């Protein structure tokens, strides 16, 4: 008899390299113990823009995800549009910096900083 397994709940992931770069930025900003707020705001060419902030503590009702020693805080409304996203880092001369691989994004603008759902 086959057993059905429930799909893993959608979450937000951060790659090891991205987490490492966040830590570097945190140290350079004089906030070595800070965590990362990942959110969305309205605007940008495509409709919604990704926002990254270094913060100390989560807000009430934030989703908290921990991976590679980095805590990510996501507010509930942003989470609706970010669930399943993997935050990666594209380095090197032609790199784009932090990259959001967001399965909810139907289109992205030319510079990749905004998306539509």
């Amino acid at each position: 008899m086959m057993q059905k397994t429930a799909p893993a709940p959608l979450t937000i992931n951060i790659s090891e390299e991205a987490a490492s770069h966040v830590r570097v930025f945190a140290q350079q900003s004089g906030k070595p113990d800070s965590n990362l707020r990942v959110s969305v705001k309205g605007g940008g060419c495509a409709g919604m823009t990704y926002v990254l902030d270094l913060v100390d503590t989560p807000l009430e009702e934030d989703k908290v995800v921990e991976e590679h020693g980095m805590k990510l805080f996501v507010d509930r409304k942003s989470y609706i549009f970010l669930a399943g996203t993997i935050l990666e880092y594209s380095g090197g001369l032609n790199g784009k910096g932090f990259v959001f691989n967001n399965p909810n994004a139907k289109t992205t603008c030319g510079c990749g900083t905004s998306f539509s759902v």
Partner: protein
Amino acid sequence: MITKASLSPRLSTDTAAFDISDSGRLSVRGDDALDLLNRLSTNDLELLQPGGGMATVLTTNKGRIIDLLRVLHLGDRLLILTSPGTSDRVVEWIDFYTFAEDITVADAAPDTSHFLFVGEGAGDALSEAGFGAWDLVEPLSHAIADGTHTIVRADLGSIPAWEVIAPHGQDIRADGIERHGANVLETLRIEQGVPAFPSELNDSRNPLEANLKPHINFNKGCYIGQEVVARLNTYDRVQRFLCQLVVDDTITLDPGSALTVDGADAGEVASSIPGLALAYLRKRFYEDGARVQVQHADGSVQATVSDLRPPEDD
């Protein structure tokens, strides 16, 4: 004796008043209100100062029109004037894109009435009635009279005009200015080439083809739809523009009627009054004085094109 010019070749009056309370009025408060609206629409609302106003186009991410908003900075809050029938969609749109911003949007329409006074003499009459209309020169500049009435300079095309937003239930009248119905306002609007929702402004159209370029700031940075609008403008990719079509006064063209030139598709009629229409005309046929065929009844009639495009900046 100086006589003031008639408002219109079709009307024998030099002033007119209208009850336009069916248009939307939204009261917007919050520290992030201007910033958020600036991220959602075409004009640079960050430049707005108390007492001033600005028209801006709310656009989709495909650069299509949701509505042409008129935003007034009242000091402690913003007042957004929307087209009739669009305020619910505007509220939903703002709400969808509100995440952590400090902004509240309230429907001010149930608490207010809204009147339009057109014609140079209307300014005199409103000033005599205590509304100080003559002090308002810049488009959408406004003042508060008696603490409860907002007076807005809101010209209708080239006709000087003022709007009065009053507490609900008050009927604002000025001596010597007759109240007219929606059909007279529609006549003036089409004669002046002013686009309106939904006939000319809707989500099948972009702001450039609707001649709303003066309400687009190309240097402000990103807003929803900016990439599409900027590309259309930079690469001259706008396919059609709004124009006037002049026909015999006995003919009223039907909205949606097809335009052709030598059998080729040239566009369609958007709205009309006897003898005149607003229409979207393909760019390759767009020329002042050009002739087009318009589908009418069982056949077609000839119409003459009148150019409505705003002048290009130097």
